[in-house]
C-alpha cells in the first residue's frame, strides 16, 4: 500500500512476514505520554497490519487504555509519531478526520448517549458521518444489535439497561460505523461468560472480514481464542509482543511469566 513502509515492516521482523503481507495500518514510533509528571507510556513502538487481531493485556494501570486512546487521538501524546492508515494523526484535524472516521472505539465505561434510545445511539453516526439514510442505518443497526443479542431492547434508553446490556449496545454502536480499525477497551468486562462467547464470535467474524482489532482485555481465555498477537504492557512499556501460543506457554519476559503464573495458579 505504501512503499516506504515495507522496510520498517521487515525490520520489525515478525516471523511470518513476507513481501505479500497485509499493509500496515497503524504504525507507532517512540510514543511517550505523560499525565502531568506521571510517565504513562514509555517509548512505545508498534506496527499493526490490516486484519491483525491484537490483544493488549497487563496489570491494572499499566497504560493499556492510554495507548489505545492515543491511537484514537482522544489523548494527545507528548512525543512520538502515530500513523494510522498512512496519516500522522497528530496533524491538522482536516487531514486526520477522514482517517479517524475509520477507527471505531468501544469504551471501558461505554459512554452511551443517555438521551438517545438504543436504536438512535446506533444510527446517529452512520447517518450523519457515513451519510446513510434512516432505513439503511436502521437495518444495519438491527443487524449488529441482533448479533449482540440486544434486538429486543431497541427502544430502551441506556439508563434502563443492565451493565452488560449497555456494553453490548456500545459494541454494536461501534460496529455500525463499519470501521477499518476497531479499538476495544475491555469490551467484555460486564458480560457474562455466555455473552462473552457470542461477542467473541462476532469479533472473530469481523476479523475474518479484514477488520483490524486492538482489544484490551483481562479475559485470558478470550485472548487465547481470538488474538493473533498478544502485547503485554507493564508500567507504560510493551514488555512482550508475542503470538498467543508462545505467550501463554513460554512467555519471554519475566514480568509476563509472573503475571501468567498468578492466573494459571
Amino acid at each position, binding site marked *: 500500500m505504501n512503499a516506504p513502509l515495507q522496510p520498517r515492516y521487515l525490520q520489525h521482523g515478525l516471523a511470518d512476514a513476507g513481501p505479500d503481507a497485509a499493509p500496515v495500518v497503524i504504525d507507532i514510533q517512540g510514543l511517550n505520554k*505523560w*499525565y*502531568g509528571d*506521571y510517565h504513562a507510556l514509555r517509548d512505545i513502538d508498534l506496527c499493526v497490519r490490516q486484519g491483525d487481531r491484537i490483544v493488549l493485556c497487563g496489570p491494572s494501570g499499566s497504560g493499556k487504555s492510554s495507548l489505545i486512546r492515543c491511537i484514537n487521538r482522544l489523548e494527545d501524546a507528548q512525543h512520538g509519531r502515530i500513523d494510522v492508515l498512512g496519516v500522522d494523526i497528530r496533524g491538522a484535524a482536516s487531514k486526520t478526520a477522514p482517517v479517524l472516521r475509520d477507527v471505531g472505539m468501544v469504551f471501558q465505561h461505554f459512554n452511551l448517549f443517555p438521551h438517545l434510545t438504543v436504536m438512535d445511539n446506533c444510527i446517529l453516526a452512520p447517518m450523519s458521518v457515513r451519510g446513510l439514510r434512516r432505513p439503511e442505518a436502521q437495518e444495519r443497526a438491527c443487524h449488529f444489535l441482533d448479533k449482540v443479542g440486544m434486538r429486543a431492547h431497541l427502544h430502551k434508553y441506556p439508563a434502563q439497561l443492565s451493565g452488560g446490556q449497555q456494553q453490548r449496545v456500545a459494541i454494536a454502536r461501534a460496529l455500525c460505523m463499519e470501521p477499518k480499525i476497531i479499538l476495544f477497551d475491555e469490551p467484555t468486562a460486564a458480560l457474562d461468560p455466555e455473552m462473552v462467547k457470542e461477542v467473541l464470535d462476532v469479533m472473530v467474524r469481523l476479523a475474518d472480514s479484514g477488520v483490524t482489532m486492538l482489544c484490551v482485555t483481562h479475559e485470558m481465555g478470550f485472548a487465547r481464542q481470538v488474538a493473533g498477537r498478544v502485547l503485554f504492557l507493564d508500567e507504560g512499556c510493551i514488555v512482550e509482543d508475542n503470538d498467543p501460543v508462545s505467550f501463554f506457554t513460554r512467555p519471554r519476559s519475566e514480568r509476563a511469566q509472573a503475571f501468567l503464573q498468578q492466573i494459571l495458579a
Partner: protein
Amino acid sequence: MLDLLQLLSWGESGWGDALLAGALVTILLALCCVPFGFPLGLLVALGSQSRRAAARLVATVFSTVFRGLPELLTLFLVYYGSQIAAERLMRHFGYEGGIVINAFAAGVIAFSLVLAAFSSEVWLSAFKAIPAGQAEAARALGLSRWTTLWRVTFPQLMRVALPGLSNNWLTLLKDTSLVSTISLADIMRQTSQAVTATREPILFYGAACVLYLILSAVSGLLFSRAEGFFSRPLQKA
C-alpha cells in the same frame, strides 16, 4: 475635557465622592443579601425536590411569587407594607406617630427573597447534573442526608451552579438600584442626581457603567477562582 474631569473629581464641585458613596451602598446591600439569598435558594431547591407534597408546594409558590413579582413591588411590599403593618400594630397598642423601617434592612430582606427565588432554579438545575450514582453511593455508605448534601452533593453542585449563580449575583448588583425609590442613595441614584444637576448624561452614565464594570470585574475574578477550586479534582492530570 478638563471640566468634565472636574465633574468627576472629589470635593465641592465634583461628583466623585457621591458616586463612590453610592457604589458603597450598592455593594454593601448586595453583599448583605448573599448570606441569606443563596442558602435560602438552596433550601427552596431542596424543598422542591422533597418527597413531601407540602414542601414542594411551598417551594414552588415561593419561587413563582418572588421571581414573578416585579422587584420594585417586592421592595415596596417589604418596605411600606411592613411599615404600615408596624404602625397599625403600634396604634393598636396606643402608640401614635411614625415608625420608620430602616430602608437598608428592607432592601436586604426584599432582595434576599428575590435572590433566593432566582438562585433556587440554578441550584435545582445543578442537582440534575449530578449522576444518580453519587447519591446511591452515599446511601450505600450510610451517609446521613446532611453529610451527603454537604460533603458529596454540594461540592459537585457548585461547579455546575457557579456560572448561573454569577448571573444571579450580577443581576442582583444592578437590581439594587431600585432602592433609590426608598430613598437609599446607591450608584444609580447618585448618577441620575449628577445628570440632572450637570446635564452630562453620557459622562455620568458612563461613569456609573465603569463603576459597575469594576464591581463585576472583581466579582468575576472571585467567581472564576471559585470555579477553578471546585473543578480542580475533575481535571485530568
